[in-house]
């Protein structure tokens, strides 16, 4: 059971979570600029620390790093993005909770933070196996998936 759980945790699957977090970061950056609805409270809190344009730059930079890592299959970019994302999301969760108290929308930051930690572990495993055995796990998985698809999807 634990072995299977470890398999699941440490297999870097392309790439839904990373793309979702990157897209959400861009959406949040847009919403901060508009200060519409719920994001107005968030924007007000964040402005206490830095100008909103700085925050938007941070979100967009993070998103671009992850998009680059995913679409150009660069493990280093994915690792840096995941580490940066973990710090950013968990930092935002902690900050908003301290400033405005516990709330479900803070939980979104916590969820992103937890999945970022998961990404760090998975990308680390990917890099470790690549350096140790010269295997590109993602390429191997993709090639096998394509072979399977060509064989069975008629």
């Amino acid at each position, binding site marked *: 059971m634990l072995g299977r759980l470890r398999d699941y945790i440490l297999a870097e699957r392309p790439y839904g979570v990373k793309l979702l977090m990157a897209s959400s970061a861009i959406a949040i950056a847009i*919403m901060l600029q508009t200060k*519409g609805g719920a994001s107005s409270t968030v924007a007000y809190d964040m402005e206490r620390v830095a100008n909103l344009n700085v925050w938007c730059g941070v979100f967009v930079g993070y998103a671009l790093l992850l998009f680059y890592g995913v679409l150009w299959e660069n493990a280093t970019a994915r690792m840096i993005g995941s580490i940066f994302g973990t710090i950013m999301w968990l930092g935002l969760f902690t900050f908003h909770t301290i400033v405005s108290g516990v709330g479900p929308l803070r939980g*979104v930051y916590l969820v992103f933070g937890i999945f970022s930690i998961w990404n760090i572990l998975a990308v680390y495993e990917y890099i470790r196996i690549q350096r140790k055995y010269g295997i590109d796990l993602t390429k191997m998985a993709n090639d*096998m998936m394509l072979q399977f698809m060509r064989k069975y999807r008629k």
Partner: protein
Amino acid sequence: MLIKLRQILYRQQPKSTDLMMGIISFLFAWAAYLTRNIQTESPVVAAMERIAPLIFWIILLAIYGVVIILATAFNYVPGIVLGTGLGTFVWGAISGILLTNLPFQPRLLLGVAIYIVFFVFSSWSFMNALEVYRLTKKFGKNYHRVVEEDMIKELIDLRNRVAQATATNDLREAERKLDHHVR
């Protein structure tokens, strides 16, 4: 280009992204429920309530969240299909209603960005879930899981060949770790 796009579209395994979307949707529903009496003057709420009461959308989002969390946790493919389908409908409906009913102000319309992101990822998940469901019905196996198992077999085989070629303490340590990893 289209082949690459198709590869990207069908590469995603219905699991972690769906789990994340389910948790986030449940949190959104919870937040909306807690603030339902405060947000009575919000143009977003007003737009949603032209179609159905706010509580209807909250319940739909909460159901989607719960269904998808349970289905991915138990790897129940029909549940994942149902959950992702419901998510696509809910986020698509919310995005569509807001884009067509909100006053034409960029400030308000751009605020819909996050709902559109969730709609896009829900639809992607739904397409993959349908594909997995179709192949599971046809071959009795989840093709993502089959590929994973093939990959692990390849890794074990490679590890054995490497260990035979250069048996050192380092590799034995690596073998032991890899053994534990694939068991």
